[in-house]
């Protein structure tokens, strides 16, 4: 009767939408701020962002039941603007095409890309706003739920945005290494980004846990589940150590040892950030506990 309503598909969606939105922001930042040798990073980030968010959205659709079997029911999804899901449908359906057009423009894909190239500046501005909206939305989606006191905090969108930016940067860096392995040396320049965003993510996560412990009885139950209960191995190992501390340390080394770090460690740090981002969503969703009503 008290089954978990949301499971892995929602976790995957929260992660993929965050990583895709973050990859877009990373691509725009690289395209605007960095010199020519970082173009492969911008290309990789833009190529990854649209498809990642689209696959995440597919996860949402597959989590539906009647709406999946009778897809016309999905037309109703924008009926209630006081529901975050209605807003999410609007934001996602605007962001995915913009991200795909931006990827086409940066990579000169077909005639669409050549046409979109004229409007690259517009795409960057509109896309960045929509990307931040997408990342923040994944947090607000669960932050407005008062049936789960643990999620019901304004820190949630902040935490998810911080995680989205660091996972997005990781996606762009892995993509750049795949597109052009010779850029692996120049990736060291972006290690500083990991240092900054992982630090922010770590601090917000710490605040979130500490405040949950005192906010309400139910939030404390969930927080304790994460730090010392059934979810603690996943939280400490996957989220804290492998997802934040190890890539943080590796990125510092990478930044100072400019270009001398072995390739597998550079890409490994990025993969760990992705593992951490997915696990963070997982433990938060599975730590949900309802209000105590009797």
């Amino acid at each position, binding site marked *: *009767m*008290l*089954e978990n*309503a*949301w499971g892995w598909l929602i976790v995957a969606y929260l992660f993929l939408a965050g990583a895709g939105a973050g990859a877009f922001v990373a691509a725009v930042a690289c395209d605007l701020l960095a010199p020519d040798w970082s173009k492969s990073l911008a290309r990789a980030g833009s190529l990854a962002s649209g498809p990642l968010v689209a696959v995440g959205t597919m996860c*949402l659709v597959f*989590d*539906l*039941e*009647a*709406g*999946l*079997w009778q897809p016309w*029911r*999905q037309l*109703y*999804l*924008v*009926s*209630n603007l*006081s*529901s*975050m*899901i*209605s807003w999410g*449908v609007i934001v996602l359906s605007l962001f995915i095409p913009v991200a795909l057009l931006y990827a086409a423009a940066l990579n000169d894909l077909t005639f669409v890309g050549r046409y979109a190239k004229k409007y690259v500046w517009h795409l960057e501005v509109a896309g960045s706003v929509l990307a931040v909206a997408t990342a923040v939305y994944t947090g607000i989606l*669960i932050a*407005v*739920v*008062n*049936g*789960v006191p643990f999620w019901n905090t304004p820190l949630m969108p902040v935490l998810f945005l911080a995680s989205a930016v660091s996972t997005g940067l990781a996606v762009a860096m892995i993509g750049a290494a795949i597109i052009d392995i010779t850029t692996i040396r120049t990736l060291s320049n972006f290690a500083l980004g990991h240092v900054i965003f992982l630090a922010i993510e770590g601090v917000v996560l710490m605040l979130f846990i500490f405040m949950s412990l005192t906010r309400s009885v139910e939030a404390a139950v969930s927080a304790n589940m994460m730090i010392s209960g059934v979810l603690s191995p996943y939280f400490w190992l996957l989220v804290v150590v492998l997802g934040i501390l190890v890539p943080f340390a590796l990125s510092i080394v990478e930044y100072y040892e400019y270009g001398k770090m072995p390739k597998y460690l550079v890409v490994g740090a990025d993969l760990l950030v992705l593992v951490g981002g997915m696990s963070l969503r997982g433990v938060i969703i599975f730590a*949900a506990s*309802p*209000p105590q*009503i*009797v």
Partner: protein
Amino acid sequence: MPRYGIAIDTTKCIGCHACQVACQNHNQLDYNQRFNWILERDRGKYPSFDKEFVPVQCNHCEDAPCERVCPTAAIYTTAEGIVHIRSERCVGCKYCVEACPYKVRIVDHHKGIVTKCWLCIDMVRKGGEPACVTTCPNQVRIFGDLDDPNSKISRFIAEHRAQPLRPDLNTKPKIYYKRS
């Protein structure tokens, strides 16, 4: 229009689950699906222990969190104050299940939609009472119009100062409890 609610006297509940079975029967639910059930709580101090049975079901909140979060506007409040689902609009996103603080909504995996207690509105509109109310062997439940100060339920709530569960959540439930 009346504003229907139920008052529940937990001091009379013996935990027989007849209300649950009557509900499953009336709504033709599977054995593992239920719109109402009984939570148990041990309370008291040695030597006077006590097990309290608290029947729970949809609270038909006036400020219903489920109604606010439903993206398809499938959830609405009827003129009688009953929170109801238009099943043809529900897509099964389960957002309302997460939003409900009382966790009294269930997923019907056959139809792929979310469903819950509807205060047997079909029988109530014909002048009857919900199945859980009429079946209870101890008359734990009192059904009636909360807006009528002379109804049995209003007098019961006034006399025993019955309260909803977790009134601090500000959802204004219409199920009241006398718990001691």
